[in-house]
């Protein structure tokens, strides 16, 4: 093979150098003319040369515009639990209901109706939670009371208009992990994996068992990265008994301007928005940098 390479190296084209030189001198004048072309020709050249890039940019612009097109979605904001009890004022039913720990926490309506000459009391309670398991557990409690009939759960929907990308994000960010037979590292890796898959690449995840045996989950945005848009993140970790160990969620982008509010006003607002989480002032950490306000909610829910 060395001989082959040597043959190639020895191949000469010297006789063509003269005509190549002439061609180069001739082409050089054209190159010079090209260099001296007026601006608009240069611009035309530039557009022609980069037309693929321009096409891609235009396509991306269309895509971004399309993603920002508002779409209307139906969001469940809560659930209505309704049931009926015989009679206009059934003391036994009232007593049984009052025994339920959750019953007192909710506002509801009580209507007495006359159906075919029989008085029936209809109860309606609005549960401001989209957690199906929680509402089902309330329903189960009600089913244990023999007198109650027609126990129904009706989702409370509202129409929300948001950009397409936000709508897409909304359906993504729920992480449900069954932690049975999983080590802390495996749970952490699983959360990390699901976050990555959902596009949350800028988050720090830590899941560990504390000295007192309780579990601690921390999911936070890395420093310097702002949380924008209506991105809901909910992390549920369940142990082998199906009991919720940790639940974590982020709230919607606020509809108020924090920078114009005092710390007390911010805390009151957040507590109102998350009233089922029983937040205390200590759980809400507020940092101010100029006009920028960052609010972190650190609530440990351990069972």
């Amino acid at each position: 093979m060395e001989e082959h390479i040597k043959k190639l190296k020895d191949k000469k084209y010297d006789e063509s150098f003269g005509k190549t030189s002439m061609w180069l001198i001739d082409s050089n004048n054209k190159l010079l003319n090209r260099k001296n072309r007026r601006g608009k020709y240069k611009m035309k050249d530039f557009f022609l040369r980069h037309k693929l890039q321009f096409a891609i940019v235009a396509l991306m612009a269309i895509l971004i515009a399309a993603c920002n097109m508002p779409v209307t979605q139906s969001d469940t904001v809560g659930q209505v639990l309704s049931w009926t009890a015989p009679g206009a004022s059934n003391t036994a039913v009232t007593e049984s209901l009052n025994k339920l720990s959750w019953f007192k926490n909710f506002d509801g309506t009580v209507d007495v109706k006359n159906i075919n000459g029989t008085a029936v009391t209809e109860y309606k309670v609005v549960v401001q939670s989209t957690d199906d398991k929680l509402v089902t557990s309330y329903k189960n409690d009600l089913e244990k009371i023999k007198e109650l009939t027609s126990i129904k759960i009706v989702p409370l929907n509202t129409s929300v208009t948001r950009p397409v990308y936000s709508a897409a994000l909304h359906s993504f960010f729920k992480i449900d992990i069954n932690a049975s037979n999983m080590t802390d590292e495996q749970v952490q890796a699983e959360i990390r994996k699901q976050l990555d898959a959902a596009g949350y690449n800028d988050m720090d995840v830590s899941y560990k068992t504390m000295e007192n045996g309780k579990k601690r989950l921390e999911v936070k945005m890395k420093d310097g990265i702002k949380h924008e848009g209506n991105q809901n993140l909910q992390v549920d970790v369940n142990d082998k008994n199906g009991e919720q160990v940790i639940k974590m969620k982020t709230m919607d982008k606020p509809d108020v301007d924090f920078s114009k509010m005092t710390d007390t006003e911010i805390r009151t607002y957040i507590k109102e928005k998350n009233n089922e989480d029983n937040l205390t002032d200590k759980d809400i950490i507020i940092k101010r940098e100029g006009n920028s306000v960052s609010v972190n909610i650190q609530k440990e829910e351990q069972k």
Partner: protein
Amino acid sequence: MRHFIQKEKLEISTRDVNKFLEFIKPCYNDALNYCRGLCRKGSRIDEAEDIFQDSLLKALENFDKLEDEGKFRNWLFTIITNTYISHYRKRLFGRLLSYDEYKDFDKLPEIFPRVEQDEMCDELFLALSKLSDKEKIAFLLFEIGGFSIEEIKILQKEISSSAIKSRLSRTREKLRKIIEDLGRNKFNGNVNRFNSIDNLELETARIINKIKP
């Protein structure tokens, strides 16, 4: 005044092209052999000339930007390599990108003989056409371009020199095997080249050449 400026520009331009020709003369043969070796199909001589032509125009157009004149050879070979890569990329997206940068320029006069007279070179071109671009470029830059392993490493955007060393040794081995196979087939009377579409054009040209009075 305008006439004077035009004349001055022309003088500078002539001086530049003469200087460019001075620089290109010592590496003229190697640059052509490099282009010839790069062409994917052994028989596509036109393509080698197209690549050489575009490379020369690019080099001449940017000659004033060359900072270190001592590195002219490496600079020219790098231009040829990039032109070769973009040439094939352009062929791939040809329907989308119909823009030809130098379409207004005259075609470079024919340089390569249309029928390869040297059988060894012919075999080598055929063998080279069976390699991947990375292997072929590394091998030809080392053998024909006189590039060092370090320079090839930079050009091929590799992290370590050992990657280039192993690429070169692997390519050499592949080439040796292909050339041996070609020789064996020829010895057995089974002329492999006829089975290759790559070389069909060349064989046709040979036959026509023989028939010609």
